[in-house]
C-alpha cells in the first residue's frame, strides 16, 4: 500500500466527505487521532493557570478564554499533550492563562513556530492564538503558508479590527476611512476579509464565529479541533477600549437577525428576522446575491465541497465596511493530507526502502582510501 493511500484512509476515518457537519453530530476527531486521551475527569479549572488575566475589563477575549477552557475538557485529551502558541498582541497573552504547555512567541510568527512543533510531534494538539495585526499584517506570509501546507493545528484569529496592545492604530481588517491615532484623516486601505484570504490560500477548514455567542463558538471550535489539517477560525472580538462596538450590528438584538447569515451544512442559505432573505447565484454572471428566501434557486451550503467557489462567494457577501451580511459558521471543511503526516510517511518510506540509517556507513560513503 502506498503511503498516500494510507494517509488518505487515516484522514478519512471519522469524517467523510458529504456528511453533515456540526458539533452536535459525532464526526470523530481525526485532528486529534494521535493525541493521547485521558480517563481522568477534567473540568474548566484544570485548564486555568494560576496567572492573573490582564485584559481590559469587558474585553471580548475573556469570553473566548472561558469558552476554550470550558470546552477542552469535553475533548478528553491528556492536558500535557496540548500546546498553545501565540504571537504578539492582546489576544496573544492567551497561552499564559491556559494550564497546558504554551509559548508566547514573537509578532506574527506563531504559525511558523507551531508548524515545526506540529510537524515533528503528531501526538500534540497544537493551537495558535493570533490577532488581525499579528496574523494578517506582520505574519501574513506565515499564515497563508501554514494554510497551504495544511499543518495539523487550529488557528484562532481574534479579529477586533484594531491594534489594541499598541493603543489603537488601524489594522489590516479596519474599514477604509478609519480614524485612529495613526490615521487622523482616515485610513486609506481596503481591509482584508480573513475568510476570503484563507480560502484563497488553499485552507481546508475555514470558519467564522463571534466572541459573544458561546454556543456557536464552542461548536465551531469542536469542529476545528476535530479537523485534520490547518483549521482557521476567525473570531469577531470586541475591543471595548479602542474599537468598541465594531461588531455591534451583528450582536445587537434589534439588528443582528437582519444582517447575520448563519451557515448550516446542507441547508439553503437564508437569513433575516423572518427568514425573508436568501442567497442565490445569478445564472448569468455566477455571482452571489441576496434575494427573497422563497427563490427556488437558493444556494445550499456544503462546506465539504472540494470546489471552494461557493464558500468564497458566501465570504464576499459581507460589506467590507459595516460587516452587514456577514456569514458565520463553517465555510469550508475538506480532507487533504496533513503536512506532518506526509512528512512522517516519507520518513517511514525511506526506512522501509533502505532500513534505519547507519551513521558509520554514511560517514564512510563510497569513495575512501586507507593510509598505513
Amino acid at each position, binding site marked *: 500500500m502506498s503511503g498516500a493511500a494510507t494517509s488518505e484512509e487515516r484522514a478519512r476515518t471519522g469524517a467523510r466527505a458529504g456528511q453533515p457537519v456540526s458539533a452536535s453530530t459525532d464526526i470523530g476527531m481525526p485532528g486529534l487521532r494521535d493525541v*493521547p486521551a485521558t480517563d481522568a475527569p477534567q473540568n474548566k479549572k484544570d485548564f486555568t*493557570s494560576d*496567572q492573573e488575566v490582564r485584559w481590559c475589563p469587558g474585553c471580548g477575549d475573556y469570553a473566548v478564554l472561558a469558552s476554550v477552557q470550558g470546552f477542552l475538557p469535553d475533548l478528553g485529551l*491528556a*492536558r*500535557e*499533550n*496540548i*500546546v498553545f*502558541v501565540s504571537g*504578539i498582541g492582546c489576544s496573544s497573552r492567551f*497561552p*499564559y492563562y*491556559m*494550564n*497546558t*504547555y*504554551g*509559548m*508566547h*512567541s*514573537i509578532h506574527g*510568527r506563531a504559525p*511558523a*513556530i*507551531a*508548524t*515545526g*512543533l*506540529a*510537524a*515533528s*510531534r503528531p*501526538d*500534540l494538539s497544537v493551537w495558535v492564538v493570533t490577532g488581525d495585526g499579528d496574523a494578517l499584517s506582520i505574519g501574513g*506570509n*506565515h499564515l497563508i*503558508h501554514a494554510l497551504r501546507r495544511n499543518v495539523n493545528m487550529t488557528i484562532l484569529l481574534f479579529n477586533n479590527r484594531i491594534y489594541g496592545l499598541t493603543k489603537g492604530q488601524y489594522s489590516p481588517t479596519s474599514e477604509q476611512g478609519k480614524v485612529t491615532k495613526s490615521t487622523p484623516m482616515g485610513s486609506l486601505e481596503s481591509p482584508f476579509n480573513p475568510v476570503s484570504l484563507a480560502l484563497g490560500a488553499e485552507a481546508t477548514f475555514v470558519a467564522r464565529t463571534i466572541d459573544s455567542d458561546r454556543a456557536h463558538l464552542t461548536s465551531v471550535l469542536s469542529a476545528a479541533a476535530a479537523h485534520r489539517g490547518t483549521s482557521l477560525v476567525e473570531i469577531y472580538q470586541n475591543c471595548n477600549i479602542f474599537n468598541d462596538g465594531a461588531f455591534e450590528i451583528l450582536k445587537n438584538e434589534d439588528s443582528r437577525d437582519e444582517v447575520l447569515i448563519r451557515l448550516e451544512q446542507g441547508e439553503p442559505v437564508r437569513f433575516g428576522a423572518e427568514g425573508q432573505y436568501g442567497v442565490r447565484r445569478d445564472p448569468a454572471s455566477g455571482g452571489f446575491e441576496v434575494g427573497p428566501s422563497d427563490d427556488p434557486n437558493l444556494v445550499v451550503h456544503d462546506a465539504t465541497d472540494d470546489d471552494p467557489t461557493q464558500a468564497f462567494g458566501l465570504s464576499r457577501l459581507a460589506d467590507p465596511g459595516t460587516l452587514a451580511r456577514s456569514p458565520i459558521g463553517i465555510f469550508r471543511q475538506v480532507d487533504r493530507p496533513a503536512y506532518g503526516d506526509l*512528512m512522517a510517511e*516519507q*520518513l517511514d*518510506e*525511506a*526506512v522501509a526502502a*533502505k*532500513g*534505519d*540509517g547507519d*551513521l*558509520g556507513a*554514511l*560517514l*564512510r*560513503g563510497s*569513495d*575512501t*582510501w*586507507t*593510509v*598505513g
Partner: protein
Amino acid sequence: MTVKQVREIDRVVIRFAGDSGDGMQLTGDRFTAETASFGNDLSTLPNFPAEIRAPAGTMPGVSSFQLHFANYDILTPGDAPDVLVAMNPAALRANAGDLPKGATIIVDTADFTSRALKKAGYESNPLEDGSLSAYKVHTVDLSGITMEALTPFGLSRKEASRSKNMFALGLVSWMYGRSIDGTVNFLEEKFAGKENIRDANIAALRAGWNYGETTEDFAVRYEVKPAALPSGTYRNITGNLALSYGMIAAAKQSGLPLFLGSYPITPASDILHELSKHKRFGVRTFQAEDEVAAIGAALGASFGGALGVTTTSGPGVALKGETVGLAVSLELPLVLVDVQRGGPSTGMPTKTEQADLLQVLYGRNGESPVPVVAASSPSDCFDAAIEAVRIAVTYRTPVVLLSDGYLANGSEPWHIPDVDTLPAIAPGFATEPNHQADGDEKPAEFWPYLRDPQTLARPWAVPGTAGLEHRVGGIEKLDGAGSISYDPANHDRMVRLRQAKVDGIAGIPDLDVDDPNGDAQLLVLGWGSTYGPIGAAVRRARRAGHSIAQAHLRHLNPMPANTGEVLRSYDRVLVPEMNLGQLALLLRGRYLVDVVSYNRVRGLPFKAEELADVIMEEVGSL
C-alpha cells in the same frame, strides 16, 4: 609511440576554467575524487559566478575550479596555478593574470574567433601576439577533437561538444597519472538510462587520455606520490557535506530527532539538499516560506524536544535575528548555521568572507548573549557542528555555527572518525516537578527557570510530560518560577544570569599556541576559514628563518579562558581577517591588547605568499 618522460614533483596547483555552462565544477570535482583516492593531500577552491548562466563567452560568465594536491600535508588550495586549463578566450583572459611565469596553459583553440576574442575583451589573439610567451602553452582543438571522437554516436554538434570537459579531464588525468575508472563509474551512474550520452562522455574521457599518450605535444607526465597522512581511512569532503554529517551525528549522539528549518540561500542551500536525503535517520527537513519561518519552525521543534537547526547565510541571519532573541529568552537549544558570503546586502553570494562575526554576536536587541563556534577547514565543519550542538543542548541556548563560502564548497581529505569515539550529548529532559511550594514536603511544582547550579541551564520539559505543563515566552520572566515579571531588580538579575550562563560554558579547551622554537615575539591569531592560509604563511615565514607563534580561535563566544594571557605574552599580535577587523575589535575591547589587523575582503581566501610577506614585515619591524 613516443616514450614519455615521467617527472616526479611534490605538489601541483591546477585550475580548470571555462564558461558557466562548460561543466568546470564537475570536471574539478571528478579530478579531485581521482586525486583523493590516489592518496594525495589536497585542497580545493571552486569559484563561480552568482548567475546560473551568465552570457556565454564573457568574463563575468567564467567559472573555475582550483585544486592543490601534494605528497605532503597542505593547508590551502594554492596561491597561483601551475597549470591552467582554459576552455575559451574569456577563461584564458580571466585567469592568465594569476599565473606565475613558466606556468603551463592548456587552451581549447576552437573558440578563438575574432568575435569570441572581442567578447572576451581581447584586442588581438593572445595565442599569436606573443603575450603568452612567458608560459608553456599547449594549444589543442579540444572541441574539434572531441566532436571527431564522438562521430560514431550520432550526436548533434552541440551535444558532442558538451563532452569536451570530459576530454580535458582525460588529458589532465593522463598528465598526472590519475586513474579514470572512478569517473567512468560516475558517468555510468549519472547517465544510467541515457546510454548514448553516457557512452559519448566515456569515449571523450578516454580520447582525452589517449591524446596525451599519443601526441608529441605532451612529452612529460608528472608524478605526485601519495602523501604520508596519519594512518586511517580517508575520504574527500566539502564543508557543507561535513557540516550536514556533523548534524546527523550530533542528533544521534544526543538521541534527539533532527529538524532542519531552512530557506534556500547561497552558499548554504547544499546543507538543506544534503539533509533532505537522510530521512532514514529520522531527519525532518522543512523548506520554509522565508528565513523567519525557517528558524521559527526549528525553534518550535526544539520546544517539542527535537534538535532544531536552521541554515542560512548573512542576509538570512539578519532576518532571523528576532527569533534568535526569542530563543535566548526561551532558553531552548537551537543551532543557527551561517555560511558567510560577501556582504553587505546581497553582496557577492558565491564568494567568501568572514564579516558576519559582529552580526551574530551583537545583531539583536537587548543583551542577547549567544555562543559562537567557527569551523576552520572543510572537514572541521563536522566537529564544529557537533560542538555547536553540545553547547546548545547542554546549556539550552541558541548557538551560532559559522562557516563560509570557501569552507562550504572547498574540499579536503577527511580522516573518517570511528563513530564509537564521538562524544555523547545528554539532553537530560526534565521529568519531575522541581520546586517545593511553601509547606509541601516534596517538590510538587515545576519551575521552568529554576537553573542547574553548575551550568545555569534551565530544565527542558517537553510537551507530553505530565505535571510539567508550563508557559514560556519572550516577556521577561521571574527568576526561577518563570512567570511574567517586570520587576527592575529581577530583570537585572535575569540579564546577568543569561550572560553568566554563556560566559561559563565549560569544555572549551585553552587556546593552543604553536611556537616550535618557543622564542617567538609575534603571534598570528586567526579564526574560521583563514586557518589554512595562515598556517601555510607561517610555514613559509618559519622556513625563511623566523620564529612565529600561531593560534586559532574556534570558540568566538565565549573565548578560551587563557586568551588574554596568550595575547599579552607576545610583543605583537597579528590578526588577519577577511573583514575590516571584527575579531581585532573584540580583542582590543575585551583584553586591552593593541593587536595589528590585516584585512582583505576580495571574496577569496588569503594567499599564503601575501600573508607570509605581511608576517615577515611585522617580524622585521619588531
